[in-house]
Protein backbone atom coordinates (compact mmCIF):
# COMPACT_ATOMS: atom_id res chain seq x y z
CA UNK A 1 0.00 0.00 0.00
CA UNK A 2 1.41 3.38 -0.91
CA UNK A 3 1.68 5.90 1.89
CA UNK A 4 -1.53 7.80 2.01
CA UNK A 5 -2.77 10.59 4.17
CA UNK A 6 -5.22 8.91 6.56
CA UNK A 7 -8.79 10.04 6.41
CA UNK A 8 -9.76 12.70 8.90
CA UNK A 9 -11.91 11.18 11.66
CA UNK A 10 -15.49 12.37 11.73
CA UNK A 11 -16.10 15.51 13.75
CA UNK A 12 -19.86 15.18 13.72
CA UNK A 13 -20.26 14.08 17.32
CA UNK A 14 -17.88 16.68 18.64
CA UNK A 15 -19.56 19.41 16.65
CA UNK A 16 -22.96 18.37 17.98
CA UNK A 17 -21.64 18.71 21.53
CA UNK A 18 -20.21 22.13 20.77
CA UNK A 19 -23.45 23.25 19.14
CA UNK A 20 -25.56 22.14 22.10
CA UNK A 21 -23.19 23.83 24.55
CA UNK A 22 -23.40 27.03 22.52
CA UNK A 23 -27.19 26.76 22.46
CA UNK A 24 -27.25 26.32 26.23
CA UNK A 25 -25.09 29.39 26.71
CA UNK A 26 -27.23 31.45 24.32
CA UNK A 27 -30.43 30.38 26.02
CA UNK A 28 -29.07 31.21 29.48
CA UNK A 29 -27.57 34.55 28.57
CA UNK A 30 -30.62 35.72 26.61
CA UNK A 31 -33.24 34.66 29.15
CA UNK A 32 -31.51 35.54 32.40
CA UNK A 33 -33.01 38.59 34.05
CA UNK A 34 -30.08 40.93 33.43
CA UNK A 35 -30.27 44.37 31.90
CA UNK A 36 -27.01 44.54 30.00
CA UNK A 37 -26.95 48.34 30.26
CA UNK A 38 -26.45 47.90 34.03
CA UNK A 39 -23.00 46.70 33.11
CA UNK A 40 -22.16 50.25 32.03
CA UNK A 41 -22.31 51.35 35.66
CA UNK A 42 -19.80 48.69 36.69
CA UNK A 43 -16.51 50.58 36.11
CA UNK A 44 -17.79 53.72 37.84
CA UNK A 45 -19.28 51.69 40.70
CA UNK A 46 -16.12 49.66 41.24
CA UNK A 47 -13.96 52.77 41.03
CA UNK A 48 -16.10 54.56 43.61
CA UNK A 49 -15.78 51.61 45.98
CA UNK A 50 -12.05 51.15 45.48
CA UNK A 51 -11.25 54.82 45.86
CA UNK A 52 -13.20 54.94 49.12
CA UNK A 53 -11.52 51.74 50.35
CA UNK A 54 -8.05 53.22 50.01
CA UNK A 55 -6.46 54.01 52.30
CA UNK A 56 -7.95 51.27 54.51
CA UNK A 57 -8.57 52.03 58.15
CA UNK A 58 -5.64 50.56 60.12
CA UNK A 59 -7.47 50.90 63.44
CA UNK A 60 -10.00 48.33 62.21
CA UNK A 61 -7.30 45.65 62.28
CA UNK A 62 -8.18 45.25 65.96
CA UNK A 63 -11.62 43.95 64.87
CA UNK A 64 -10.66 42.15 61.68
CA UNK A 65 -7.65 40.14 62.85
CA UNK A 66 -9.38 38.33 65.76
CA UNK A 67 -12.32 37.49 63.48
CA UNK A 68 -9.97 36.12 60.82
CA UNK A 69 -8.21 34.04 63.47
CA UNK A 70 -11.61 32.68 64.42
CA UNK A 71 -12.27 31.77 60.77
CA UNK A 72 -8.94 29.93 60.63
CA UNK A 73 -9.72 28.11 63.89
CA UNK A 74 -13.11 27.06 62.51
CA UNK A 75 -11.39 25.74 59.39
CA UNK A 76 -8.76 23.95 61.48
CA UNK A 77 -11.18 22.19 63.81
CA UNK A 78 -13.65 21.56 61.00
CA UNK A 79 -10.91 19.84 59.03
CA UNK A 80 -9.96 17.71 62.06
CA UNK A 81 -13.59 16.67 62.54
CA UNK A 82 -13.91 15.93 58.84
CA UNK A 83 -10.67 13.92 58.76
CA UNK A 84 -11.66 11.93 61.86
CA UNK A 85 -15.08 11.07 60.42
CA UNK A 86 -13.68 10.35 56.97
CA UNK A 87 -11.25 7.65 58.12
CA UNK A 88 -13.83 5.00 59.05
CA UNK A 89 -16.12 6.15 56.22
CA UNK A 90 -13.28 5.93 53.73
CA UNK A 91 -12.17 2.45 54.84
CA UNK A 92 -15.71 1.12 54.72
CA UNK A 93 -16.31 2.85 51.41
CA UNK A 94 -13.33 1.17 49.73
CA UNK A 95 -14.31 -1.91 47.73
CA UNK A 96 -11.13 -3.79 48.61
CA UNK A 97 -11.69 -3.34 52.36
CA UNK A 98 -15.43 -3.79 52.86
CA UNK A 99 -17.96 -5.67 50.77
CA UNK A 100 -19.26 -4.33 47.48
CA UNK A 101 -22.74 -3.59 48.83
CA UNK A 102 -21.56 -1.70 51.93
CA UNK A 103 -19.12 0.33 49.90
CA UNK A 104 -21.66 1.36 47.28
CA UNK A 105 -24.16 2.39 49.94
CA UNK A 106 -21.51 4.38 51.77
CA UNK A 107 -20.33 6.02 48.57
CA UNK A 108 -23.85 7.25 47.84
CA UNK A 109 -24.10 8.49 51.41
CA UNK A 110 -20.84 10.43 51.01
CA UNK A 111 -22.07 11.91 47.72
CA UNK A 112 -25.24 13.01 49.48
CA UNK A 113 -23.29 14.77 52.24
CA UNK A 114 -21.15 16.52 49.67
CA UNK A 115 -24.21 17.88 47.89
CA UNK A 116 -25.09 20.05 50.92
CA UNK A 117 -22.96 23.20 51.05
CA UNK A 118 -21.64 24.28 54.47
CA UNK A 119 -24.05 27.19 54.50
CA UNK A 120 -27.09 24.90 54.24
CA UNK A 121 -25.74 22.53 56.88
CA UNK A 122 -25.20 25.53 59.14
CA UNK A 123 -28.66 27.09 58.84
CA UNK A 124 -30.68 23.89 58.68
CA UNK A 125 -28.93 21.74 61.27
CA UNK A 126 -26.12 23.24 63.29
CA UNK A 127 -27.39 26.73 64.11
CA UNK A 128 -30.63 25.23 65.46
CA UNK A 129 -28.60 22.83 67.61
CA UNK A 130 -25.59 24.89 68.72
CA UNK A 131 -27.01 28.38 68.33
CA UNK A 132 -25.41 31.27 66.45
CA UNK A 133 -21.65 31.35 66.65
CA UNK A 134 -18.48 29.63 65.51
CA UNK A 135 -19.39 26.21 66.93
CA UNK A 136 -22.21 25.84 64.38
CA UNK A 137 -19.89 26.90 61.57
CA UNK A 138 -17.17 24.50 62.67
CA UNK A 139 -19.56 21.55 62.74
CA UNK A 140 -20.95 22.47 59.30
CA UNK A 141 -17.43 22.60 57.88
CA UNK A 142 -16.61 19.29 59.58
CA UNK A 143 -19.57 17.37 58.19
CA UNK A 144 -19.20 18.74 54.67
CA UNK A 145 -15.46 17.94 54.72
CA UNK A 146 -16.19 14.40 55.86
CA UNK A 147 -18.09 13.89 52.60
CA UNK A 148 -15.27 15.01 50.34
CA UNK A 149 -12.47 13.49 52.42
CA UNK A 150 -14.31 10.18 52.76
CA UNK A 151 -14.60 9.93 48.98
CA UNK A 152 -10.93 10.79 48.42
CA UNK A 153 -9.86 8.38 51.18
CA UNK A 154 -11.86 5.50 49.72
CA UNK A 155 -10.34 6.17 46.32
CA UNK A 156 -6.81 6.26 47.75
CA UNK A 157 -7.39 2.96 49.56
CA UNK A 158 -8.72 1.30 46.42
CA UNK A 159 -5.47 2.22 44.70
CA UNK A 160 -3.12 0.49 47.19
CA UNK A 161 -0.70 -2.32 46.53
CA UNK A 162 -2.37 -5.54 47.80
CA UNK A 163 1.03 -7.04 48.75
CA UNK A 164 1.35 -5.62 52.27
CA UNK A 165 -2.28 -6.57 53.01
CA UNK A 166 -1.60 -10.19 52.03
CA UNK A 167 1.59 -10.12 54.08
CA UNK A 168 -0.27 -8.84 57.12
CA UNK A 169 -2.86 -11.61 56.70
CA UNK A 170 -0.15 -14.22 56.17
CA UNK A 171 1.50 -13.43 59.49
CA UNK A 172 -1.87 -13.79 61.22
CA UNK A 173 -3.12 -10.21 61.33
CA UNK A 174 -6.81 -9.89 61.96
CA UNK A 175 -9.44 -7.28 60.91
CA UNK A 176 -8.21 -3.97 62.21
CA UNK A 177 -4.59 -5.12 62.43
CA UNK A 178 -4.51 -5.69 58.69
CA UNK A 179 -5.95 -2.22 58.10
CA UNK A 180 -3.55 -0.64 60.57
CA UNK A 181 -0.35 -2.29 59.26
CA UNK A 182 -1.21 -3.27 55.71
CA UNK A 183 -3.34 -0.39 54.46
CA UNK A 184 -2.88 2.74 56.57
CA UNK A 185 0.90 3.18 56.10
CA UNK A 186 0.40 3.04 52.34
CA UNK A 187 -2.19 5.78 52.19
CA UNK A 188 -1.28 8.00 55.15
CA UNK A 189 0.99 10.49 53.32
CA UNK A 190 -1.64 10.91 50.65
CA UNK A 191 -4.38 11.33 53.26
CA UNK A 192 -2.43 14.00 55.11
CA UNK A 193 -2.08 15.76 51.77
CA UNK A 194 -5.87 15.61 51.31
CA UNK A 195 -6.46 16.96 54.82
CA UNK A 196 -4.19 19.94 54.26
CA UNK A 197 -5.79 20.58 50.89
CA UNK A 198 -9.21 20.48 52.52
CA UNK A 199 -7.97 22.88 55.20
CA UNK A 200 -7.10 25.39 52.47
CA UNK A 201 -10.62 25.12 51.04
CA UNK A 202 -12.16 25.34 54.51
CA UNK A 203 -10.38 28.63 55.17
CA UNK A 204 -12.59 30.06 52.43
CA UNK A 205 -15.68 28.38 53.86
CA UNK A 206 -14.76 29.72 57.30
CA UNK A 207 -14.86 33.21 55.82
CA UNK A 208 -18.31 32.70 54.25
CA UNK A 209 -20.21 31.27 57.19
CA UNK A 210 -20.22 34.55 59.10
CA UNK A 211 -22.87 35.83 56.68
CA UNK A 212 -25.44 33.63 58.42
CA UNK A 213 -23.97 34.26 61.86
CA UNK A 214 -22.07 30.99 62.08
CA UNK A 215 -18.82 32.64 63.19
CA UNK A 216 -15.74 34.12 61.59
CA UNK A 217 -14.85 37.15 59.53
CA UNK A 218 -17.75 36.81 57.08
CA UNK A 219 -19.93 38.77 59.48
CA UNK A 220 -17.58 41.78 59.36
CA UNK A 221 -17.32 41.59 55.56
CA UNK A 222 -21.10 41.51 55.24
CA UNK A 223 -21.69 44.36 57.67
CA UNK A 224 -18.93 46.73 56.57
CA UNK A 225 -19.78 46.37 52.87
CA UNK A 226 -23.55 46.49 53.33
CA UNK A 227 -23.38 49.67 55.34
CA UNK A 228 -20.78 51.22 53.05
CA UNK A 229 -18.08 51.52 55.69
CA UNK A 230 -15.48 51.30 52.96
CA UNK A 231 -12.20 52.03 54.78
CA UNK A 232 -13.14 49.34 57.33
CA UNK A 233 -14.23 46.99 54.54
CA UNK A 234 -10.88 47.56 52.84
CA UNK A 235 -9.00 46.55 55.96
CA UNK A 236 -11.14 43.44 56.39
CA UNK A 237 -10.70 42.38 52.76
CA UNK A 238 -6.94 42.83 52.95
CA UNK A 239 -6.84 40.71 56.12
CA UNK A 240 -8.79 37.95 54.36
CA UNK A 241 -6.56 38.00 51.28
CA UNK A 242 -3.27 38.08 53.21
CA UNK A 243 -4.32 35.39 55.69
CA UNK A 244 -5.61 33.10 52.94
CA UNK A 245 -2.44 33.41 50.88
CA UNK A 246 -0.23 32.85 53.95
CA UNK A 247 -2.17 29.72 54.96
CA UNK A 248 -2.15 28.44 51.35
CA UNK A 249 1.60 28.91 51.13
CA UNK A 250 2.42 27.21 54.43
CA UNK A 251 0.02 24.35 53.81
CA UNK A 252 1.31 23.88 50.26
CA UNK A 253 4.90 23.74 51.52
CA UNK A 254 4.02 21.17 54.19
CA UNK A 255 2.17 19.05 51.65
CA UNK A 256 5.12 19.12 49.31
CA UNK A 257 7.42 18.14 52.19
CA UNK A 258 5.19 15.25 53.28
CA UNK A 259 4.74 13.68 49.86
CA UNK A 260 8.29 14.41 48.79
CA UNK A 261 9.48 11.68 46.49
CA UNK A 262 5.97 10.61 45.63
CA UNK A 263 3.86 12.36 43.01
CA UNK A 264 3.03 15.75 44.38
CA UNK A 265 -0.71 16.15 44.19
CA UNK A 266 -1.29 19.84 44.40
CA UNK A 267 -5.04 19.55 44.02
CA UNK A 268 -6.29 16.01 44.60
CA UNK A 269 -9.72 16.98 43.33
CA UNK A 270 -8.14 17.74 39.95
CA UNK A 271 -6.65 14.28 39.92
CA UNK A 272 -10.04 12.72 40.48
CA UNK A 273 -11.57 14.97 37.84
CA UNK A 274 -9.27 13.96 35.04
CA UNK A 275 -8.81 10.31 35.89
CA UNK A 276 -11.77 8.57 34.26
CA UNK A 277 -11.40 5.49 36.46
CA UNK A 278 -11.75 7.63 39.57
CA UNK A 279 -14.41 9.92 38.17
CA UNK A 280 -16.53 6.93 37.24
CA UNK A 281 -16.96 5.82 40.82
Amino acid sequence: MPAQRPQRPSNLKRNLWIASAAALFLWASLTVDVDITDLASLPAGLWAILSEMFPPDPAYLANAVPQMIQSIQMAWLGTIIGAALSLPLGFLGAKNVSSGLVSSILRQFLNAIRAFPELILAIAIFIPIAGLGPVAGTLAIGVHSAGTLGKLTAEAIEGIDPGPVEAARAVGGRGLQVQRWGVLPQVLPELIGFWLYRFEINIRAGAVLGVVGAGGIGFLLDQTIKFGRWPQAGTTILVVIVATIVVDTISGAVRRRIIEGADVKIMPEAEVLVDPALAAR
Partner: protein
Amino acid sequence: MTAAAPASRRPAKPRRSPFVSVGLGAFVIITLISLSEEWGIGLDIGSLLEDIGRGLPIIAQLLDPNWDFLPRVIEPLIETFQIAVVAAFIGCAVALPITFFAARTTVPNRATLAISRGILSVVRAIPDFLYALIFVAAVGIGPLPGILALIFFNVGVVAKLLSETVDAIDTGPIEAADAAGSRRTQMVRWAVLPQVLPNYVAFSLYAFELNVRASTVLGFVGAGGIGFLLRTQYQFLQWSNVSVIIICLFVIVFAIELVSIRLRRRLV
Protein backbone atom coordinates in the same frame (compact mmCIF):
# COMPACT_ATOMS: atom_id res chain seq x y z
CA MET B 1 4.90 2.12 46.62
CA THR B 2 6.75 -1.14 46.68
CA ALA B 3 7.66 -3.18 49.71
CA ALA B 4 11.25 -2.96 50.95
CA ALA B 5 13.62 -5.80 50.17
CA PRO B 6 13.52 -8.50 52.86
CA ALA B 7 16.32 -8.20 55.42
CA SER B 8 17.77 -11.11 57.30
CA ARG B 9 17.82 -9.21 60.54
CA ARG B 10 15.37 -6.74 61.96
CA PRO B 11 16.71 -3.35 60.89
CA ALA B 12 17.04 -0.52 63.37
CA LYS B 13 14.02 1.73 63.49
CA PRO B 14 14.85 4.94 61.64
CA ARG B 15 14.99 7.97 63.87
CA ARG B 16 11.98 10.21 63.68
CA SER B 17 12.71 13.34 61.71
CA PRO B 18 12.55 16.60 63.71
CA PHE B 19 10.04 17.80 61.13
CA VAL B 20 7.51 15.25 62.40
CA SER B 21 7.97 16.22 66.07
CA VAL B 22 7.66 19.92 65.34
CA GLY B 23 4.64 19.27 63.14
CA LEU B 24 2.89 17.15 65.76
CA GLY B 25 3.67 19.69 68.47
CA ALA B 26 2.27 22.54 66.38
CA PHE B 27 -0.80 20.44 65.57
CA VAL B 28 -1.59 19.76 69.24
CA ILE B 29 -0.98 23.36 70.32
CA ILE B 30 -3.10 24.91 67.54
CA THR B 31 -5.89 22.43 68.21
CA LEU B 32 -5.93 23.10 71.96
CA ILE B 33 -5.93 26.87 71.42
CA SER B 34 -8.74 26.58 68.87
CA LEU B 35 -10.83 24.45 71.21
CA SER B 36 -10.41 26.69 74.24
CA GLU B 37 -13.18 28.97 75.43
CA GLU B 38 -10.85 31.90 75.94
CA TRP B 39 -8.65 31.92 72.83
CA GLY B 40 -10.63 29.80 70.43
CA ILE B 41 -14.20 28.99 69.50
CA GLY B 42 -15.04 27.14 72.73
CA LEU B 43 -16.14 23.82 71.30
CA ASP B 44 -17.43 21.69 74.15
CA ILE B 45 -18.74 18.28 73.15
CA GLY B 46 -20.54 17.78 76.47
CA SER B 47 -22.76 20.86 76.28
CA LEU B 48 -23.25 20.22 72.58
CA LEU B 49 -24.78 16.83 73.31
CA GLU B 50 -27.09 18.48 75.86
CA ASP B 51 -28.15 21.04 73.25
CA ILE B 52 -28.95 18.51 70.61
CA GLY B 53 -32.56 18.45 71.78
CA ARG B 54 -32.93 22.14 70.93
CA GLY B 55 -32.55 21.46 67.23
CA LEU B 56 -34.99 18.55 67.11
CA PRO B 57 -38.25 20.54 66.61
CA ILE B 58 -36.68 22.39 63.66
CA ILE B 59 -35.30 19.21 62.16
CA ALA B 60 -38.74 17.65 62.53
CA GLN B 61 -40.21 20.54 60.49
CA LEU B 62 -37.46 20.13 57.91
CA LEU B 63 -38.46 16.50 57.53
CA ASP B 64 -42.00 17.63 56.74
CA PRO B 65 -41.57 19.66 53.52
CA ASN B 66 -44.39 21.93 52.44
CA TRP B 67 -44.87 20.87 48.82
CA ASP B 68 -47.36 23.67 48.17
CA PHE B 69 -44.33 25.93 48.17
CA LEU B 70 -42.78 24.13 45.20
CA PRO B 71 -44.13 26.45 42.44
CA ARG B 72 -42.38 29.43 44.04
CA VAL B 73 -39.06 27.58 43.99
CA ILE B 74 -39.03 26.83 40.26
CA GLU B 75 -38.33 30.32 38.95
CA PRO B 76 -35.37 31.15 41.25
CA LEU B 77 -34.03 27.67 40.60
CA ILE B 78 -33.99 28.36 36.85
CA GLU B 79 -32.29 31.67 37.54
CA THR B 80 -29.64 29.87 39.59
CA PHE B 81 -29.06 27.55 36.66
CA GLN B 82 -28.82 30.45 34.20
CA ILE B 83 -26.35 32.32 36.39
CA ALA B 84 -24.22 29.20 36.73
CA VAL B 85 -24.23 28.55 32.96
CA VAL B 86 -23.40 32.11 31.88
CA ALA B 87 -20.68 32.54 34.50
CA ALA B 88 -19.10 29.16 33.77
CA PHE B 89 -18.90 29.84 30.02
CA ILE B 90 -17.47 33.34 30.33
CA GLY B 91 -15.21 32.47 33.26
CA CYS B 92 -13.72 29.42 31.55
CA ALA B 93 -13.24 31.34 28.29
CA VAL B 94 -11.33 34.04 30.16
CA ALA B 95 -9.34 31.49 32.14
CA LEU B 96 -7.91 29.76 29.06
CA PRO B 97 -5.57 32.53 27.81
CA ILE B 98 -4.67 33.47 31.40
CA THR B 99 -3.57 29.88 32.03
CA PHE B 100 -0.83 30.10 29.43
CA PHE B 101 0.61 33.13 31.21
CA ALA B 102 0.69 31.20 34.49
CA ALA B 103 2.31 27.90 33.45
CA ARG B 104 6.04 27.23 33.55
CA THR B 105 6.00 25.39 30.24
CA THR B 106 4.56 28.25 28.23
CA VAL B 107 6.13 31.27 29.96
CA PRO B 108 9.93 31.25 29.84
CA ASN B 109 10.17 34.61 31.59
CA ARG B 110 10.38 34.15 35.36
CA ALA B 111 9.14 37.64 36.20
CA THR B 112 6.02 37.35 34.02
CA LEU B 113 5.29 33.98 35.59
CA ALA B 114 5.67 35.30 39.14
CA ILE B 115 3.41 38.27 38.46
CA SER B 116 0.63 36.28 36.78
CA ARG B 117 0.73 33.59 39.48
CA GLY B 118 0.64 36.28 42.16
CA ILE B 119 -2.44 37.87 40.62
CA LEU B 120 -4.09 34.46 40.33
CA SER B 121 -3.47 33.64 43.99
CA VAL B 122 -5.09 36.95 44.99
CA VAL B 123 -8.06 36.18 42.72
CA ARG B 124 -8.33 32.77 44.40
CA ALA B 125 -7.94 34.13 47.92
CA ILE B 126 -11.11 36.22 47.64
CA PRO B 127 -14.10 33.98 48.46
CA ASP B 128 -17.05 33.90 46.04
CA PHE B 129 -19.46 35.67 48.36
CA LEU B 130 -17.02 38.56 48.85
CA TYR B 131 -16.99 39.14 45.09
CA ALA B 132 -20.77 39.01 45.25
CA LEU B 133 -20.92 41.60 48.06
CA ILE B 134 -18.64 43.97 46.14
CA PHE B 135 -20.50 43.59 42.85
CA VAL B 136 -23.86 44.04 44.56
CA ALA B 137 -22.51 47.30 45.95
CA ALA B 138 -21.24 48.31 42.50
CA VAL B 139 -24.19 47.42 40.22
CA GLY B 140 -27.12 46.76 42.56
CA ILE B 141 -28.93 43.54 43.48
CA GLY B 142 -30.00 40.91 40.92
CA PRO B 143 -28.41 38.13 38.91
CA LEU B 144 -25.80 40.42 37.29
CA PRO B 145 -23.55 40.74 40.37
CA GLY B 146 -23.92 36.98 40.86
CA ILE B 147 -22.70 36.30 37.34
CA LEU B 148 -19.79 38.72 37.74
CA ALA B 149 -18.80 37.16 41.07
CA LEU B 150 -18.86 33.62 39.70
CA ILE B 151 -16.82 34.66 36.63
CA PHE B 152 -13.98 35.75 38.92
CA PHE B 153 -14.41 32.64 41.04
CA ASN B 154 -14.26 30.36 37.96
CA VAL B 155 -11.26 32.12 36.46
CA GLY B 156 -9.39 31.50 39.72
CA VAL B 157 -10.31 27.81 39.93
CA VAL B 158 -9.89 26.87 36.26
CA ALA B 159 -6.70 28.84 35.63
CA LYS B 160 -5.11 27.29 38.71
CA LEU B 161 -6.07 23.69 37.87
CA LEU B 162 -5.26 24.05 34.18
CA SER B 163 -1.89 25.75 34.67
CA GLU B 164 -0.85 22.83 36.86
CA THR B 165 -1.93 20.45 34.11
CA VAL B 166 0.05 22.44 31.56
CA ASP B 167 3.11 22.25 33.83
CA ALA B 168 2.90 18.47 33.74
CA ILE B 169 2.43 17.89 29.99
CA ASP B 170 4.71 15.96 27.69
CA THR B 171 7.35 18.41 26.39
CA GLY B 172 8.01 16.39 23.22
CA PRO B 173 5.41 18.18 21.08
CA ILE B 174 6.69 21.54 22.35
CA GLU B 175 10.21 20.69 21.23
CA ALA B 176 8.83 19.51 17.91
CA ALA B 177 6.95 22.78 17.47
CA ASP B 178 10.06 24.77 18.39
CA ALA B 179 12.16 22.72 16.00
CA ALA B 180 9.67 23.35 13.22
CA GLY B 181 10.09 27.06 13.85
CA SER B 182 6.73 27.91 15.35
CA ARG B 183 6.11 31.11 17.24
CA ARG B 184 4.93 31.05 20.83
CA THR B 185 1.23 31.39 20.01
CA GLN B 186 1.52 28.66 17.38
CA MET B 187 3.35 26.44 19.85
CA VAL B 188 0.59 26.90 22.44
CA ARG B 189 -2.10 26.24 19.84
CA TRP B 190 -0.61 23.07 18.29
CA ALA B 191 1.65 21.57 20.97
CA VAL B 192 0.03 22.49 24.30
CA LEU B 193 -3.68 23.01 23.77
CA PRO B 194 -4.43 19.58 22.23
CA GLN B 195 -2.80 17.92 25.23
CA VAL B 196 -4.85 19.76 27.85
CA LEU B 197 -8.15 20.22 26.04
CA PRO B 198 -9.95 17.24 27.66
CA ASN B 199 -8.77 18.43 31.09
CA TYR B 200 -9.94 21.94 30.28
CA VAL B 201 -13.43 20.69 29.49
CA ALA B 202 -13.42 18.57 32.66
CA PHE B 203 -12.39 21.55 34.80
CA SER B 204 -15.05 23.71 33.15
CA LEU B 205 -17.73 21.17 34.05
CA TYR B 206 -16.37 21.12 37.59
CA ALA B 207 -16.54 24.94 37.72
CA PHE B 208 -20.16 24.72 36.60
CA GLU B 209 -20.94 22.30 39.43
CA LEU B 210 -19.27 24.60 41.93
CA ASN B 211 -21.38 27.49 40.61
CA VAL B 212 -24.65 25.71 41.30
CA ARG B 213 -23.48 25.00 44.84
CA ALA B 214 -22.26 28.57 45.33
CA SER B 215 -25.66 29.97 44.35
CA THR B 216 -27.01 29.46 47.88
CA VAL B 217 -24.40 31.84 49.22
CA LEU B 218 -24.84 34.40 46.45
CA GLY B 219 -28.53 34.87 47.05
CA PHE B 220 -27.88 35.53 50.72
CA VAL B 221 -26.10 38.75 49.80
CA GLY B 222 -28.57 39.74 47.06
CA ALA B 223 -26.78 38.40 43.99
CA GLY B 224 -29.73 36.50 42.53
CA GLY B 225 -30.85 32.90 42.35
CA ILE B 226 -32.35 30.51 44.88
CA GLY B 227 -30.31 31.83 47.81
CA PHE B 228 -32.47 34.93 48.12
CA LEU B 229 -35.63 32.88 48.58
CA LEU B 230 -33.75 30.65 51.00
CA ARG B 231 -32.76 33.68 53.02
CA THR B 232 -36.29 35.09 53.33
CA GLN B 233 -37.81 31.73 54.26
CA TYR B 234 -35.02 31.12 56.75
CA GLN B 235 -35.44 34.53 58.34
CA PHE B 236 -39.18 33.99 58.76
CA LEU B 237 -38.41 30.55 60.21
CA GLN B 238 -40.52 28.81 57.54
CA TRP B 239 -38.66 25.55 57.98
CA SER B 240 -41.05 23.46 55.89
CA ASN B 241 -40.46 25.85 52.98
CA VAL B 242 -36.71 25.86 53.60
CA SER B 243 -36.89 22.10 53.38
CA VAL B 244 -38.45 22.23 49.88
CA ILE B 245 -35.70 24.60 48.71
CA ILE B 246 -32.98 22.37 50.10
CA ILE B 247 -34.47 19.26 48.51
CA CYS B 248 -34.75 20.95 45.09
CA LEU B 249 -31.20 22.20 45.34
CA PHE B 250 -30.02 18.77 46.37
CA VAL B 251 -31.74 17.15 43.41
CA ILE B 252 -30.32 19.64 40.91
CA VAL B 253 -26.78 19.42 42.32
CA PHE B 254 -26.96 15.64 42.29
CA ALA B 255 -28.34 15.51 38.74
CA ILE B 256 -25.70 17.90 37.41
CA GLU B 257 -22.98 15.89 39.09
CA LEU B 258 -24.24 12.66 37.50
CA VAL B 259 -24.37 14.20 34.01
CA SER B 260 -21.00 15.82 34.43
CA ILE B 261 -19.35 12.59 35.62
CA ARG B 262 -20.75 10.82 32.55
CA LEU B 263 -19.43 13.55 30.26
CA ARG B 264 -16.01 13.59 31.90
CA ARG B 265 -15.70 9.84 31.58
CA ARG B 266 -16.27 10.08 27.84
CA LEU B 267 -13.84 12.94 27.47
CA VAL B 268 -10.71 11.77 29.14
